[in-house]
């Protein structure tokens, strides 16, 4: 079970800020594939991984990173601070 968190247009496209997801996904990419297969709104949010960033337990990570032991996965567009 992981907490999946969405920000900015990813949150808007999926329609949720966060959800608990039961998954056996080994990597972030596997989790993305599971989510994208759920419904069109998820497929739309994950259509272009190049336009997305991921953080595992609040640290930036890559899409091939393993999910073992991770409690919180966040998906969001490239950041625009400053």
């Amino acid at each position, binding site marked *: 079970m992981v907490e999946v968190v969405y*920000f*900015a247009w990813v949150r808007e496209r999926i329609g949720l800020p966060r959800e608990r997801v039961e998954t056996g996904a080994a990597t972030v990419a596997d989790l993305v594939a599971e989510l994208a297969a759920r419904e069109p709104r998820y497929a739309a949010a994950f259509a272009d991984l190049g336009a997305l960033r991921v*953080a595992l337990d609040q640290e930036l990570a890559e899409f091939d990173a393993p999910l073992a032991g991770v409690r919180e996965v*966040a998906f969001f*567009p490239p950041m625009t*601070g400053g």
Partner: protein
Amino acid sequence: MKISVQEAPFDAGAEIAAFGAGRADIGAVVTFTGLVRDDTGALEALELEHYPGMTERAIAKIAEEAVARWALADCLVIHRHGRLAVGEAIMMVATAARHRVAAFEAAEFLMDYLKSRAPFWKKEHGPGGETGWVAAKDADEAALKRW
């Protein structure tokens, strides 16, 4: 080192006055204040979303790196979230060092990293409502390479 992620406005003058006060080893203070700018004539406000928890951690990590690389005497980052009208201050950084080159460079490093590595996202609001999310610029990502 002071890091604040806040919705409330800040007083840049008061922050600068208090920053690095009372230390004999500081020869230079560099400050930068970012404002909400209207490029199109149709912007009323920016709405800044952030990732509570990660935002503070990410900024602290960037600030700690700046302090270590330039041996800064002190470092300050204030970044706001929520709805900000055109002309309002979004954020400020300040760096204090023995010499000005270190203070200038560290301030630029902080700004480059805050733009692309601090989890904030900006949505534009015009007179008719939301007009979309501000896209990250390739130039901002490229700016990190110089460090």
